[in-house]
């Protein structure tokens, strides 16, 4: 008897549960599943962008792109950009978080200022940087020359490797505040007693960093690195606005290539195939990220 009423009640609860998550599931399908499936579908056609008319080509797009040098060059560029900018973001971000965690008098002011690059619109930030980098009127060249570091104005965005270095640096500047905030939040939860115990156990400041702070930051760093890796890998506007992929194609990452295929070469099918490949690459990071966060919960 009891058993039966209980299962009835349970059934009613699960119905209610379904009802409650239904809106979310619908929205999720509309904005994530549909575009995803549609991208995979489009990648099997040869499509002319302005008319969106196309013919079935099967896996031809994939065969072509994997055989093309441009794909592999862009992938390489993409990895250089991602690894470069992410490394700098982590180093500056953790360093700055450690500084801001100290009891310095300008701490709260600095904490708000540090967020500035992250909140500012990419377009605005890039325009400002382009002015700073400008080889004729740019303040950067002016300062470097007056400091005697260079004799001649440098072309920061028009030559290699300068362009790649500039893009990586601007990316690091723009996104390191995210690392600062995430790491700082974690730092504040490390119990003081651990540091005190370490001091009594004879650990100096460096030993305390490696034996107390770093192990406590490990989990959060994995999550930050995975998230930022995904976000940096697919970064479009910053690079597009700063160099447009140039000089020639030296800073053309995969997202820029997708854009070029879709809207400059009008090959929507090919562009979709690139996008699907990109997604597969990012899937690796996503799986690691999900594994990580799940094991943390258990």
């Amino acid at each position: 008897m009891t058993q039966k009423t209980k299962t009835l009640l349970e059934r009613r609860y699960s119905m209610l549960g379904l009802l409650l998550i239904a809106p979310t599931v619908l929205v999720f399908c509309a904005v994530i599943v549909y575009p995803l499936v549609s991208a995979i579908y489009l990648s099997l056609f040869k499509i002319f962008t302005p008319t969106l008319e196309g013919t079935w080509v099967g896996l031809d797009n994939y065969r072509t792109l994997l055989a093309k040098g441009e794909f592999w060059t862009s992938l390489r560029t993409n990895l250089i950009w991602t690894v470069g900018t992410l490394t700098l973001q982590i180093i500056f971000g953790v360093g700055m978080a450690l500084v801001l965690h100290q009891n310095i008098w300008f701490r709260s002011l600095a904490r708000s200022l540090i967020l500035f690059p992250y909140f500012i619109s990419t377009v605005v930030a890039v325009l400002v940087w382009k002015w700073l980098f400008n080889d004729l009127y740019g303040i950067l060249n002016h300062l470097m020359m007056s400091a005697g570091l260079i004799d001649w104005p440098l072309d920061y965005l028009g030559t290699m490797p300068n362009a790649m270095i500039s893009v990586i640096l601007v990316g690091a500047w723009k996104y390191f505040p995210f690392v600062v905030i995430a790491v700082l939040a974690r730092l504040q939860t490390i119990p003081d007693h651990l540091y005190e115990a370490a001091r009594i156990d004879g650990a100096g400041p460096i030993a305390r960093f490696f034996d107390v702070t770093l192990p406590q930051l490990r989990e959060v760093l994995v999550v930050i690195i995975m998230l930022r890796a995904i976000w940096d890998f697919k970064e479009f506007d910053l690079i597009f606005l700063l160099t447009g992929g140039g000089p020639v194609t030296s800073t053309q990452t995969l997202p820029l290539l997708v854009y070029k295929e879709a809207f400059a070469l009008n090959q929507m099918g090919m562009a979709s195939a690139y996008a699907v490949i990109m997604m597969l690459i990012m899937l690796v990071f996503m799986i690691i990220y999900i594994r990580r966060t799940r094991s943390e919960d258990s």
Partner: protein
Amino acid sequence: MADVVFSSVQKQFGSFMAVDNLNLDIQQGEFISLLGPSGCGKTTTLRMLAGLEFPTGGEIKIGDRVVNDVPPGERDIAMVFQSYALYPHMSVGQNISYPLKKRRVPKAERAAMMAKTAEMLQLTPLLDRKPKELSGGQQQRVALGRALVRDPKVFLLDEPLSNLDAKLRGHMRTELIELHQRLGRTMVYVTHDQLEAMTMSDRIAVMEGGKLQQFAPPKDVYREPANRFVASFIGTPGMNIVDGALRHEGGRWIFEAPGISVGTQNLGPETRPGNAAMGIRPEGLSFGEGPIEGIVQLVEQTGHENIVVVLVGTDMRLTGRTAADRVWRAGESVQLSIDSNQAHFFEDGPNGIRLNRPLSSPGNQEAAQ
């Protein structure tokens, strides 16, 4: 030989005086408790000794060395934290040997010392576990192990048992006493639990409001509390304290309060007539024929005795103890008497000093038995 000395130590946080003019002389090998209510400055005192907090005045010595400016790692002390403060990513074994590692003890020696400590604390089967895979009692032992492993001059313990359940706490108490006897090291133990302080310590430093109230063996703190605060803080159920006045009459002192009058000859020469307080422990009250009339208000049965609260007059409550087989009814009228030899007398005020002559003094034989 004095092992730890506090001379006029004070600690101020902003304008708040957390520890005020503290003087303590701790002998080598002694087990000392810092006892007092929450917020009285016990932890601050311990942390100053550890070097985690710096005194704003006075001098702290460990051995013959003034340590005011010595960092914690060089003071030859070890500390057990209330929260245990185990390194969460290290195994039990790594936690215990960490202080040795930081002191560059060679690896083989380190392993041997760690194994010995683990053996002593019955941690050997747990050496590869992480702290979060241990029970509270086991974590506590690891924290002890990390302190014991390098055999420091002084052990500092900040309420180490307060996160354990009652039964385990009792067990750990005996273990700590045994440990102290075996190692013969100086131990400074912070607690707000008088039972811990009374059962474990050679001497107890009772603190209140940042000030040392009394520093004496448990027996003396109980039998000869230095002042009214100590008298009321030590003992469960607490001492009955009655406000009243003292007057001198016919070569002896008479204490009077509404419904109560007690005579004594055992007060010291500094006693003055006027407002005062009398303290009497529950065992100093006897029921039956007596000059004090009251009404039973509350009875607590502990199993081996009954704690009886009696209302005397309109608002005075006296607590007494009787045998468990004596049956009480709330509302019942009783008569009480006070054993004047067991009565304590205090100057007026919350920290009024005790006026009784010392138990050992010659003019005081009747109380000394």
